[in-house]
C-alpha cells in the first residue's frame, strides 16, 4: 500500500472514528435521558396506582368494618354462637354487600365455614381456612389494611382487594371478609401515558395464574414470568426489557410486588413502557449520525487526498529517483520543492547520489587497475613458467656450443624439442587468453540435458575409472524438458566442471550428476566428495584468472559463468570443507522465453 493510500486511510479512519465516538456519546446520553424519563413516568404511575389502591382500600376497610359492627351481624354472631340455625342467614351477605357496594362479601363461622356469601351464594357450608392459622380454629394475625387475593367465584377466580374484620361473640370470632374486584376497570381509570400500560399478575392458591391488563393489547405471558418470579422472590422493584416474538416494539417492564394476605405476595404490578418512541428517536439519531459520518468520510477522503498528494509528491519523486538509481541510472537529480524536512531530504538525496557516483567511479577505476594488475600477474606467472625452461634451454645451448659439436648436437636436439614444447605451451596460454577475450555468442537450440550429461560421463568414463584413485559416478537424472542452449558451449561448461571435480578428488571419490526442473529452468548439479572449498574460495571462484590449482589458468570457471550468463542462466557453488563441493546450474527451458 502506498504512502498516499496509507495517509488517506489514516485520515479517513480518524474522521470516522471521531464521528462514531461522538454518535456513541450522543446515543448513550440519549438513552440515559430516556431511562430517566421512563423511570420518572413509571414512578409516577406506580404512585398513582398506590394512591388509587389506598383510596379503594380505605373505602373497603370502612365498608367491611361497618358490616362487622352492624347490629344484624352482631345479632347473627350471637345467634349462631348460641347454636342458632345458619340457614336463616344464608342470604344475608348479599344484602350487606349491596348496601356497601362491595363485589365480594363472605360471612364466616369461627371454624371458617361460610355462613353466607354474596358473590357465590351457593357456596355456604364449605370451609375456607386461608385466613386461619394452622390449628384452624384460632385466628391468625389479622391485617388491618386491605390486601390482594384471588377470590373464587362461579365465573372463576378474580383478583380482589379485600379487608377482613372479626366479630367476637361469646368468646369466639366470626369473620367478615369483603372487598371489590381489581379488574381492568381500575387500571383503565389510571391516567396511563401513551406508550405505557399496566399489568397485574396474580395467582390463586390453586389453578392457573393470570394477568389483568389496562389495554386490550395481547402479550406473551411467558416472557414476563421470569420478571414476575424475581419480583415475588425479591419483593423489591425490578425491571427488564422484553423483546416480543411477534415483532412488537421492545418494552421495559418494571415489576412491583403487591401485598397479599400474610407473608405471601399476592400479585405483581407490571408497568410496561414501550421503547417504540425511544427506538424511533435513536434510529433517527443513528441515521443523522450516519449521514454526518458519511459526509465526514467523504470530506476526509477529499481533504486527505489533497494533503496526501501534497505530502507524498516529493517523497514519491525521491522514491522514483532511488528506484532509477537502483536500476543503474545514476544521472538522477531531485529538485527540492520546499524547505521543510522533505526538501532537506531531497537535498540530502542529491548529495548522496553525487557521492555514490563519485565512489562508483573510484571503485571502477580501482577495479580496473586491480584487474589489470591481476591480468599482468597472471600473464607474468603464466609466461614466466615457460620462459624459465626456455632460458635454461638457451643457456644449455650456449654451454653446449662451447663444449663441442657432438654434445651440442645432442643438446641442440633436446633443446629444440624443449623449446618447441615450451613455445607450444606459450601459444596455448596465449590461445586461452585469446579465447577468453573472444567468447562466441551462443547458438541456441533445444538441448536434451540428460543426454548431454550422459555423453560427458561416457567421455570421461575411462579417465574416471582408471588407476587406484578411481571415481565412482552416480547419475540421478530426472526427466527434464529440452533446454534452450548452445550444445557446444554447454558441453564445454559441463566438461570443465567435471575436470575441476576430478582435480578436486586426487584420491578418488564419488561424482554425482543430478538433473531436475525448477519452474521454467532446467537444473544441473554436480557434486564431488573432494576436499571442498572455503567460503572465501567459493566467493572468488568465478573471478577470471583465479585458481586454486597449481597449473590452472583461472579462466575455466570464469568462462563457464560467462557461458551460463550468456544463456540467461545462473551458476552457483556451495561447498563444505572436507565434505565436497556442488555446482548448481540453472538454464532456461526451451520455449520459456
Amino acid at each position, binding site marked *: 500500500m502506498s504512502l498516499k493510500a496509507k495517509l488517506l486511510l489514516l485520515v479517513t479512519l480518524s474522521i470516522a472514528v471521531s464521528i462514531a465516538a461522538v454518535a456513541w456519546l450522543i446515543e448513550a446520553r440519549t438513552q440515559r435521558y430516556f431511562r430517566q424519563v421512563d423511570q420518572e413516568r413509571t414512578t409516577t404511575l406506580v404512585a398513582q396506582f398506590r394512591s388509587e389502591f389506598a383510596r379503594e382500600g380505605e373505602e373497603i376497610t370502612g365498608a367491611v368494618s361497618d358490616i362487622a359492627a352492624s347490629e344484624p351481624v352482631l345479632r347473627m354472631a350471637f345467634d349462631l354462637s348460641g347454636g342458632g340455625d345458619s340457614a*336463616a342467614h*344464608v342470604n344475608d351477605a348479599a344484602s350487606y354487600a349491596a348496601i356497601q357496594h362491595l363485589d365480594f362479601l363472605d360471612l364466616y363461622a369461627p371454624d371458617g365455614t361460610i355462613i353466607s356469601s354474596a358473590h*357465590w*351464594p*351457593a357456596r355456604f357450608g*364449605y370451609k375456607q381456612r386461608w385466613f386461619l392459622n394452622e390449628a384452624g380454629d384460632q385466628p391468625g394475625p389479622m391485617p388491618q389494611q386491605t390486601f390482594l387475593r384471588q377470590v373464587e367465584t362461579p365465573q372463576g377466580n378474580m383478583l380482589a382487594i379485600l379487608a377482613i374484620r372479626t366479630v367476637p361473640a361469646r368468646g369466639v370470632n366470626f369473620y367478615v371478609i369483603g372487598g371489590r374486584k381489581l379488574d381492568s376497570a381500575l387500571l383503565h381509570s389510571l391516567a396511563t401515558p401513551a406508550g405505557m400500560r399496566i399489568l397485574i399478575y396474580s395467582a390463586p392458591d390453586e389453578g392457573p395464574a393470570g394477568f389483568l391488563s389496562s389495554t386490550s393489547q395481547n402479550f406473551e405471558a411467558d416472557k414476563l414470568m421470569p420478571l414476575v418470579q424475581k419480583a415475588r422472590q425479591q419483593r423489591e422493584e425490578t425491571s427488564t426489557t422484553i423483546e416480543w416474538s411477534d415483532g412488537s416494539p421492545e418494552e421495559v417492564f418494571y415489576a412491583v410486588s403487591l401485598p397479599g394476605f400474610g407473608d405471601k405476595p399476592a400479585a405483581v404490578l407490571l408497568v410496561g413502557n414501550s421503547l417504540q418512541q425511544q427506538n424511533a428517536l435513536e434510529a433517527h439519531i443513528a441515521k443523522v449520525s450516519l449521514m454526518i459520518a458519511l459526509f465526514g468520510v467523504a470530506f476526509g477522503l477529499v481533504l486527505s487526498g489533497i494533503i496526501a498528494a501534497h505530502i507524498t509528491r516529493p517523497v514519491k519523486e525521491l522514491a522514483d529517483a532511488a528506484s532509477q538509481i537502483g536500476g543503474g541510472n545514476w544521472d538522477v537529480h531531485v529538485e527540492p520543492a520546499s524547505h521543510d524536512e522533505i526538501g532537506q531530504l531531497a537535498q540530502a538525496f542529491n548529495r548522496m547520489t553525487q557521492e555514490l557516483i563519485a565512489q562508483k567511479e573510484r571503485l571502477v577505476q580501482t577495479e580496473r587497475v586491480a584487474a589489470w594488475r591481476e591480468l599482468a600477474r597472471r600473464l607474468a606467472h603464466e609466461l614466466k613458467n615457460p620462459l624459465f625452461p626456455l632460458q635454461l634451454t638457451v643457456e644449455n645451448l650456449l654451454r653446449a656450443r662451447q663444449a663441442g659439436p657432438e654434445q651440442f648436437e645432442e643438446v641442440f636436439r633436446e633443446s629444440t624439442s624443449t623449446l618447441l614444447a615450451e613455445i607450444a605451451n606459450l601459444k596455448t596460454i596465449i590461445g586461452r587468453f585469446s579465447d577468453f577475450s573472444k567468447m562466441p555468442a551462443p547458438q541456441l537450440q533445444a538441448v536434451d540435458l540428460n543426454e548431454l550429461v550422459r555423453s560427458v560421463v561416457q567421455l570421461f568414463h575411462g579417465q574416471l575409472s582408471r588407476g587406484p584413485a578411481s571415481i565412482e559416478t552416480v547419475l540421478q537424472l530426472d526427466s527434464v524438458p529440452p533446454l534452450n542452449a548452445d550444445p557446444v558451449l554447454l558441453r564445454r561448461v559441463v566438461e570443465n566442471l567435471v575436470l575441476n571435480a576430478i582435480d578436486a578428488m586426487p584420491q578418488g571419490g564419488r561424482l554425482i550428476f543430478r538433473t531436475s526442473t525448477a519452474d521454467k529452468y532446467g537444473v544441473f548439479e554436480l557434486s564431488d566428495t573432494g576436499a571442498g572449498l572455503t567460503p572465501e574460495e567459493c566467493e572468488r571462484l568465478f573471478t577470471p584468472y583465479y585458481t586454486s590449482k597449481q597449473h590452472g589458468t583461472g579462466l575455466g570457471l570464469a568462462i563457464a559463468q560467462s557461458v551460463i550468463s550468456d544463456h540467461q542462466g545462473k551458476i552457483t557453488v556451495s561447498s563444505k570443507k572436507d565434505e565436497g563441493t556442488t555446482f548448481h546450474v540453472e538454464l532456461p527451458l526451451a520455449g520459456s522465453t
Partner: protein
Amino acid sequence: MQLTSSGHRGVGASGQPAPSRAGAPGHRKTKTALAIALLVIAASTIFASTRPHYGSTARVLIQHKINSLDPLVETDYPGDRDKLSPLVFETLTELDAQGHVHPRLANSWQSEAAQRVWQFQLRLANFQDGTAVTSTIVVASLKSVSPEWKFTVYSRQTFTIETPTPSPHLAELLSLPKFAVIKRLPNATLVGSGPYKLSQWQPGEHALFTANDDYWEGRPYPDAIEVQMGASMREHLLERNLGHDHAALLGLDQVRALEQTSQNVVLSRPAELLVILFLQPDQAARNGKKAVDPHIREAIADSINRSAISNVLLQKKAASTTALLPQWLTGYAFLFPDKPDPEQAHKLRTQAGAVLPVSLAYDFSDPVSRMVAERIAVDAHETGIAVQPVGDAHINTRTGRKASTADAVLLRLPLRALDASTALAAVADDLDLSPEMLAAITSAGRADELFAAERKTLEDFRVVPVAHLSQALWLNNTVHNWQQLPNGDWNLDQLWVEGAR
C-alpha cells in the same frame, strides 16, 4: 275387582261442613214460621262472615305464563296448567287427599281379572255447550291422548278400554289432567263439563273462568275466577299490599319474606320433584355431543349435599331425596341413601380420567332452580368436576330439551297424582323412561314392585333426584275453603270469597 262409587259430593275434602245451597221453606204455622224467620235473621247477622256466599270474583296470581289449557299442547309449566284446567275440564275419576280414587264423570267402573279390559259407566252430565257427555265423545277425547289403547263403545253411557298390558291402576291413571274429557269442536274450540266456563282467554296473560250454572254437581259459589299470569314478584307483592288478590302461587324464595310479615302462606307437602336429568346421547338435536360418563354422573349424584339444599337454600321448604317419589307417598323412599359421599365421588372422578365440563341447564325464569344448580356446581367443583349452570328458557318441554345443547337439565316435575304408581307413570315421559319401564310401573300392583321399578330407573344415574319441594300458596284472609292437596294441587269445589252479596 270392582271399584264402584257414587258421584256424591256432600262433604269437602278439607273436612269443613258443606255449605247449604239455597232452598224453599216448608209449610208451618205462621208463628212458628215467624219465629224461625227471626231466628234465621239473627243467626245470619251473627254468622254472616263465616257462611259461604255465592258471588264475587276470586282473583288468582300465577307466576308462570300458560298459553293453552289443552293437555295435548306441550307447555313449559304443566303444573300450573293442571291447577287451572280442572276448572273447565273433568276427568273420569279423581283422587282424594289420601290417594283414594273416586268417581267424577264416570259413575262406576270395573275390570276383568287380568286388569287389561276396563268398563266405564258415565254419569248423566252435560258439556258447557249444553250437549250431553257421551261415550263416543269421551272415547274420542281419551283416544287422542292414548292411541295405543283400544276403545269400545257399548252404549251412550258405557264403553271399555283395553290396554296392551295389565293396568291395575287405570282408574287412578285416568284422574290425571291429561285424561280430561274434552269435546273438540270443528272450530278448534275446547268444551269441557267442569264447574267453570272459560269466558276470556289471553294466552300467557289473563283468563276469566265464570261459574257454570248448569254444572251437574251444582253451581260453584264464586261468580268467576280471574287468573293473572306471568306476574312478577314485585307485582305480586304490590297487589297483595293493596289487597286486590285472593290467592297467589309463590316461589319458595319468596316464602320467607312473607312468613316474616305474618302473611297467610299455605305449604303443600314436599311433592314437586327436583331432579337432574342427563340428556340422552342419541338425541339427534344434540349435535353429536357424547353422553356424560356414567362415573361422572354417579360422582355428581354422590357429591350433592342435598341436606344443604333443602335446609339452607330452600329454607326447609323442601325435603332432600334420592328417590323419585316422596317418602310420605310411598313409604319406601328412605331406602334410597341420600347422604353425600364425597370420598366415593372423588374415587369415581378419578376413575373417569379427563373430564369435560358438564353443562347443567336450568329454567331461566326460576330463581330456585338457579340457586340449586349453582349449589350442585359448587358441590361438584369440590369433587373436581366442573359443572356449568346454564339458564335456559325452554328446558321444561321435551321439545326444548331435545334442542338443548346442555349435558343435563335440572327439572321441577310436579307430583301429578296422589297414587304412587300413577304419579310415577306421570313423570315417565319427562324422564324419557323406556316403554318397558313404563309398563313395569303401570303394572306394579304392590309397593315392592314399584320400589323395584323406581330403583331400576335410578340405577344408571341418568336420573338424579335432588329434593322434593313444597308448593307455596299465599291466600288472602277473605278466601275460604281453598283446599290445597298434599301434592299442591287445588280443590276449589267449596271455594267462596268474602265480600260477595
